[in-house]
């Protein structure tokens, strides 16, 4: 196992870096897009709500691999050239955003109705009430479930392995195939994932306690 680390540290580090990069981009992207669709889902207008829920249901109910493959194989045929890393990251962003939309929507619903009424009666418009009062409180409530989504996101970034995105899992597969030391290689890959996800999950737990 040590010899894998000594001889393969370069691709492993490269994979780790790409996994982190993809996760960060998808994290920000899915948070923005997810919040947007959460707001659509609670709109006054039925047609807007419908658009929101179609988006969420489609991306939530199709495997991430299929979405990423779609971007990698089909988009370049008709639309634009796209690298495996980009295809995987976009796929991951859209996929995760559907889950985040659900989470944020639940968070908004969990802010008690009095907060909205208080703001409206105080003269704020609906949009202002959302922006200054409801969303800030909703985000506080959704931090724990969002944390879980982010951990899932990091793990799901392994979809890059299927679209040649040079992430940790991709490099791990190659090393396992070259050296045939399959179990030790995946063991190391597992530990590298834990190095990202475990601190994240303990930080989330800490935040959850602090905000409770």
């Amino acid at each position: 196992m040590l010899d894998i680390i000594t001889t393969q540290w370069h691709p492993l580090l490269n994979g780790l870096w790409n996994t982190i990069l993809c996760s960060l981009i998808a994290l920000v992207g899915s948070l923005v897009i997810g919040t947007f669709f959460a707001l659509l889902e609670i709109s006054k207008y039925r047609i807007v709500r419908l658009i929101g829920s179609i988006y969420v249901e489609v991306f939530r109910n199709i495997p991430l691999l299929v979405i990423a493959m779609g971007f990698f194989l089909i988009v370049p045929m008709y639309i634009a050239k796209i690298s495996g890393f980009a295809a995987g990251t976009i796929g991951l962003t859209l996929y995760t955003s559907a889950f985040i939309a659900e989470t944020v929507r639940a968070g908004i619903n969990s802010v008690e109705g009095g907060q909205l009424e208080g703001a409206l009666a105080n003269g704020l418009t609906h949009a202002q009430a959302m922006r200054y009062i409801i969303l800030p409180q909703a985000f506080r409530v959704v931090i724990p479930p969002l944390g879980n989504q982010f951990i899932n996101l990091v793990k799901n970034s392994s979809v890059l392995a299927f679209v040649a995105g040079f992430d940790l899992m991709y490099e791990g597969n190659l090393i396992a195939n070259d050296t045939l030391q399959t179990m030790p290689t995946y063991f190391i890959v597992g530990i590298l994932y834990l190095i990202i996800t475990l601190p994240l999950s303990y930080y989330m737990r800490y935040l959850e306690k602090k905000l409770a």
Partner: protein
Amino acid sequence: MSMIEFHDVQKYYGKFHALKDINLTIDAGETVVLIGPSGSGKSSLIRTVNGLDPIRDGKLIVNGFDLADKKTNVNLIRKDVGMVFQHFNLYNNKNVLENIMLAPRIVLKRPEKENRDLAMKLLEKVGLADKANNMPAQLSGGQKQRIAIARSLAMKPKCLLFDEPTSALDPEMIDDVLNVMKDIAENSNMTMLVVTHEMGFARDVADRVIFMADGRIIEDDSTEKFFGDQPTTQRARDFMSKISGH
């Protein structure tokens, strides 16, 4: 000049007829107390006044705006009509000062310095100047309610609505809140519509007492008449005897 006018107002929740044939005029500067058993429609009535709940039918004119008209911008009404809730509804994510300053800043675009000065003055008025930087969760119920009143006053409204402002409070906190309300009623020419079971307050402060039951206004008396003689209807007399002492 009238501040609030109901003309044959009907309100429904789905199929449930919550307000029936409401006719009521409240003049500018009047203090009106609204009483009645639970579920009689007091909250429903008061919430239609600033457009928190829509009406189905009839005409409702508040501060010159017609609420039944879809083209009316309800925010224009809410600027001038404040509301105080049973459960305070302070913004949990803002401290006391921010609770008071937020709406004037955003809605009225009041300059920051003037906004802060007024907020501090109102905090003093409600006796809580030392709590300016506390979060709502750090306050007792009575303190929260006084902050909520200050928050409404900061908009310099012409009219204030109160929906059972003291019924979620511990008994020894109630007087602090009622005293603030009395002060407003006596020392400003605010129009006030107050749902409450505090009969002492009604007797001392109200110009008129309105009694509701089953979605209807059953009595609309001057305070002297309501407490001096007796309510006209049996319903109101029964109700008064039931709540006396609590």
